[in-house]
């Protein structure tokens, strides 16, 4: 919990320091030295103004430094556990001569944002040339000016981006971001414990499952599903009433003990230990769990619909290797490389032609609707609309309070 900014306005800064000396915290010369140090240690954040650095000031050193640093989530790229390498990255290096430093640094949109925001706001290099964040966080990053504009001439393969992803409300024309993978949020259950299965979110509230249900702490997925259950078009123009109704449902089910815990990624452990028998889940997780633990769970989009989200590749402001980053994006937009990744991560590939390429990579996955969803399947999946900054703060606050924080 290290706040990183001090008052920028010199007058206010003096006020804050004076305030402290009145409390006898600082005295005499020591105080002055401290004040100087304080002034020096502020990273010069820009609280109210534009909040972003000028992209033009960054020098692209891609030509001299043949490297690209990429921050991604865990289990999100094909991995050879025996050789301990990422085969597709090796292929990228072989093809382009660019060394890729891949790190699984991102374990949550919010926590990652909290970690790097101070530097991004100050226009500093965060040491990553590509970051991979979910739609709503991508929207926030672009809105705050924390990303660089992509040069599409370096990414000819971007033409393979699926049509429905080409124009999104948070990045018209995809100038700053490209989809990495997409996935669904829906409901999943333990097949042995619930042989009859589930059809809708309301089925999660069956008293027989009391204390054995978990929902995701990702607000847009859990409340998105609950709003859909209430008949709300989550991509449309919903507002406070629709949100609060769904939130009331969530509060009720927490209060009456139906929901055991509201969780992030760790709901997978609870599925394995069978503390949780029915959950709001991400599609790829269930596919992976079934693969690792034997076919124990089933995932569906509820009758009223599930959510469709995407993670996006972006180049952070002040990254000195933008061209290399673009070459890496171009590499993964090649259908065959995209199929290689999709076969391993089990999420939806955003690349047109990946399905045809999958015939060569792993024919058994070609008809998997969680990787290559049919049009009917996609019709049940909804993208939640992008929230404004004020809405985001307001709804996050209400959601966090409802889940006990």
């Amino acid at each position: 919990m290290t706040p990183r900014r001090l008052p920028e306005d010199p007058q206010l800064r003096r006020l804050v320091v004076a305030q402290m000396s009145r409390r006898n915290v600082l005295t005499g010369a020591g105080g002055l030295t401290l004040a100087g140090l304080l002034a020096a240690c502020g990273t010069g954040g820009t609280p109210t103004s534009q909040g972003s650095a000028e992209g033009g000031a960054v020098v692209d050193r891609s030509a001299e430094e043949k490297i690209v640093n990429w921050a991604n989530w865990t289990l999100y790229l094909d991995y050879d556990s025996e050789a301990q390498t990422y085969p597709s990255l090796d292929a990228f290096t072989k093809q382009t001569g660019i060394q890729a430093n891949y790190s699984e640094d991102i374990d949550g949109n919010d926590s990652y944002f909290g970690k790097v925001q101070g530097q991004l706001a100050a226009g500093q290099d965060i040491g990553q040339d590509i970051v991979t964040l979910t739609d709503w966080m991508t929207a926030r990053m672009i809105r705050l000016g924390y990303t660089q504009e992509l040069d599409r001439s370096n990414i000819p393969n971007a033409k393979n981006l699926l049509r429905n992803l080409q124009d999104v409300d948070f990045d018209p024309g995809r100038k700053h971001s490209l989809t990495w993978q997409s996935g669904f949020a829906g409901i999943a259950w333990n097949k042995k414990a619930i042989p009859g299965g589930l059809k809708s979110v309301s089925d999660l509230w069956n008293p027989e499952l009391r204390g054995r249900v978990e929902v995701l702490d990702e607000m847009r997925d859990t409340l998105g599903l609950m709003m859909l259950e209430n008949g709300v078009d989550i991509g449309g123009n919903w507002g406070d009433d629709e949100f609060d109704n769904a939130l009331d449902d969530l509060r009720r089910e927490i209060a009456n003990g139906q929901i055991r815990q509201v969780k992030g990624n760790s709901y997978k452990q609870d599925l394995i230990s069978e503390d949780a028998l029915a959950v709001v889940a991400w599609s790829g997780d269930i596919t992976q769990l079934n693969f690792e633990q034997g076919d124990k769970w089933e995932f569906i989009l509820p009758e009223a619909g599930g959510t469709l989200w995407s993670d996006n590749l972006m180049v952070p402001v002040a990254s000195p290797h933008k061209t290399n980053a673009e070459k890496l994006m171009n590499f993964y937009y090649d259908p065959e490389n995209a199929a290689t990744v999709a076969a391993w991560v089990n999420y939806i590939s955003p690349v047109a032609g990946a399905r045809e390429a999958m015939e060569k990579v792993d024919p058994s996955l070609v008809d998997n609707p969680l990787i290559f969803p049919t049009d009917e399947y996609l019709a049940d999946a909804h993208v939640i609309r992008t929230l404004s900054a004020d809405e985001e703060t307001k709804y996050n606050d209400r959601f966090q309070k409802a889940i006990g924080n």
Partner: protein
Amino acid sequence: MSLLATRRQQQTGAGKGKNGRKRNKPEDFRSPGEVAADKRKSHMGYWLILPGFIFMLLFFVLPVFSLLATSLYTKPPGADIGQFAPALQFSNYAVVLQDYWAELIRSFGFALIATVAALLIGYPMAYLVAVRLRHRNLLRGILLVLIIAPFFTSFILRTQAWKQILADESLVVSALQAVALLPEDGRLTATAFAVVCGLTYNFLPFMTLPIYASLERLDTRLLEASSDLYSNAFTTFRRVTLPLSMPGVMAGTLLTFIPASGDYINAALLGNNQDTTMIGQVIDSRFFRVVDYPGASALSFILMLAILALVTLYVRRFGTKELI
């Protein structure tokens, strides 16, 4: 008897300022050369604390001021997420206190119960190893390693292991249900009980080790003397052993209570979303999820002040000068 008396005297004398000044009195009779040498020595002392001073300044004092400043920031109208303007908005404190007083009190309640439980478990453990097994070196070594061993693995992994051990379908829960100690639909994880147990377990070494250290120095002849004077075991413990181990008890309780009240891992992994939220979780949620830096900073500052106040009261009440 006389032995006990001298020890007491030594103990009481050690920290007292009055005696300290007395001892320095001969200074007045020293030669000027000696005085100068002493002054050089005292300068040397300042140089030696310089690295520590700079370290504390950079990594404690400055962040605290930064925290204080941030806690008074305001969100100007129309500002985007994470954008705040410097201000002196003291109402931030009132707002977070109003919203989160319950979590604050709960954190101290959980930490208090965990500290008492750790004391009740840790003291006998420390006593056994330090006094009873004093001459059985091998056994003592093994037990000491067992006490410290939990430190060798990650805090989070150990707590995660607890979740598996106490899961609804686990042997523990079914056994407890079979003997009707736990209702049919009862559970152990995702409860306040589990959170307090996790806190107790995770901070137990911090309680046991300081008590062990002070009991290890306990002169067992004092115990013999006490029984020679017709004290029973309980009186001996109350009048001799416990008072002499009080420095360890004080250190152990502080080392357990302070981190336990700010802990959020146990509550996040073993708790639920109704009645187990601790203040650390709230600070995490305000900072990362809601991106309310002033609110999170204000809560951190309140937590710090509250711990400081509680610890001061505690030390004033229970810790006498001769012990600390």
